[in-house]
């Protein structure tokens, strides 16, 4: 990771000196040619964009039924292929609600909770990491100890105690997921800053009297971005899983809204008998989306891996 950033730093340096094409353009081109060669990256991007599209466009998609409309005569209709009809392609649940519609509705909650939580964690964690690494001293000790304590007090425990104290809510889940991941950004950010701090371009700007806030914002942060984005994707997978676990325990979204974890909780009494599809499809939805995010993160990591990246750049036609 250090090596990557050193290369990035030197690239940025030479880019400015030669007034060659701006660095952003070449990185994007590298990214695109790397993506074309990576099955994992392509499948990851396809799954993630489908998930985002469905979650955002959900209610306006054609042919989608009302996720809350109950119809007791239609309860526990099996999916197409197991005796069901195209009226309910994935069957219905114990109250006769269309499972496909509920899955699409649940995607919104998953996306909302996990993305918001990761953004909060990334901003908070990165700022703390920058400050700890760059300022150092007592502030550093304080932030590092706080991260250590957080490591010993993982999200689920915080979730249990907060839900017990304040009752279940979506916002609580967002906060719990965010506080269980900020320290990851702090640790990675701090370590990167510690290695960057001694590099020439930082020392040069310090010597020319740049205030520390500007050094952190304009010189250090841009060098952290690629690692932090990779980390965001990785944490997003954890956040989606955590959200589903909390919803499953009944700590998040409350009925009649649906969420994938909540669907599994409500369908669990039917797993042993006639209604296996409720739990199966809801879990499958979580698993596919998390798999997509994981594939994306696998690809980003391999792109950040400097040896592999050079290989790709060398293989690029015209290079």
């Amino acid at each position, binding site marked *: 990771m250090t090596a990557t950033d050193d290369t990035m730093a030197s690239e940025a340096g030479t880019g400015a000196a030669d007034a060659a094409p701006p660095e952003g353009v070449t990185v994007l081109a590298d990214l695109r040619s790397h993506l074309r060669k990576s099955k994992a990256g392509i499948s990851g991007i396809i799954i993630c964009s489908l998930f985002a599209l469905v979650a955002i466009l959900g209610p306006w998609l054609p042919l989608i039924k009302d996720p809350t409309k109950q119809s007791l005569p239609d309860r526990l209709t099996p999916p197409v292929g197991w005796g069901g009809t195209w009226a309910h392609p994935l069957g219905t649940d114990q109250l006769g609600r269309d499972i496909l519609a509920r899955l699409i509705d649940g995607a919104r909650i998953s996306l909302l909770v996990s993305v918001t939580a990761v953004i909060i964690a990334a901003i908070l964690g990165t700022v703390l990491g920058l400050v700890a690494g760059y300022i150092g001293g007592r502030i550093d000790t304080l932030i590092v100890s706080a991260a*250590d*304590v957080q*490591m*010993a*007090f*993982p*999200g*689920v*425990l915080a979730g*249990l*105690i*907060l*839900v*017990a*104290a*304040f009752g279940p809510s979506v916002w609580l889940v967002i906060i719990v997921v965010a506080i269980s991941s900020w320290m990851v950004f702090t640790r990675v950010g701090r370590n990167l800053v510690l290695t960057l701090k001694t590099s020439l371009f930082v020392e040069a700007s310090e010597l020319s009297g740049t205030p520390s806030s500007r050094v952190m914002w304009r010189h250090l942060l841009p060098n952290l971005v690629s690692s932090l984005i990779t980390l965001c994707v990785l944490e997003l*997978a954890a956040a989606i*899983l955590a959200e*589903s*676990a909390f919803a*499953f*325990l009944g700590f998040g979204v409350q009925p009649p809204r649906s969420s994938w*974890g909540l669907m*599994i909780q409500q369908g*669990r009494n039917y*797993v*042993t008998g006639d209604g*296996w599809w409720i*739990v*199966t499809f*809801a*879990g499958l939805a*979580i*698993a*596919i989306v*998390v*798999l997509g995010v*994981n*594939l994306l993160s*696998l690809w980003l990591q391999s792109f950040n891996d400097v040896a592999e990246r050079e290989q790709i750049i060398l293989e690029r036609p015209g290079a």
Partner: protein
Amino acid sequence: MLRWLARRIIAAALVVFVVTSLVFVVTHVFTDPATVSLPLEASEEHRAQRRAALGIDRPLGVQYWDFVSGLVVGDLGESFWQNQPASKLVLERLPATLKLVAGATAVTVLLAAPMGMLAAWWERRFPDHAVLGFSMASISAPPFWIGYLLIIVFAVQLGWVPTFGSRGFASLILPSFAIGLASAGRLAQMTRRGIVEELRKPYAVTALSRGFSRSYTIVHHTFRNVASGFVTMTGWELTRMFTGYTVVIEVVFAWPGVGRLAVQAIEGRDLILVQAAVVVLATLVVVTNLLVDIARRMIDPRVELA
């Protein structure tokens, strides 16, 4: 070594102290056990009565002192949902949770070590891809869903093991796999990466060029050097288990452990009992981390005395 150990233990005790204090702040400053236990429409009189009964009408400082001195002697307060000492309730459930985590750890280690070695042995060939596929699938699927799939297939369809509850060894199998598969997936990749990196190092290249087979070199040379990382990662997975998915899996399989007790206590609006369960689980996490550090020191003396 002894000084290192002493410092490490004091640091661990400090972390436990800070975590429990944070828990106290949530349960006594932002709200209080009496308010949580009563319905919103309860009369002010009723509230005051409950406060007095729980000793929450006293100044916060006194309550905090009581809480901390109680912790030292293992008194975690009285559960009003069960009318029993909270520590007794939690400790009764602790063996079940420990048994489950032990089972899951066994699954993790027994799957991850061979899979990681196989993947490294046939690097970039079919077994490597198969192990990667298993890892990606197992870390992407939510563990509680894996639990239900295992129930559907092995308990309902095949009838090999009980669906839920904790009756003997057979009922331990499914929940252990439900928790352990994801950990095994992560650990297998770590092991593979570690061995592949080690195999590029001069000592391994020498061993290979002297005619030792790839499998012999992996088992006898490189795996030992990966072992320290393996133990650390297993420890990481252990702490994840204690606090993460064990709670959920206990609910899925109606396993009588601490996690399920905490969830039941939330439903019973018993803040004291939730607090007790959380304090015990957090302490377990800290103790596990401590034990992992010690184990790593014993396996690999090169680990610095930080």
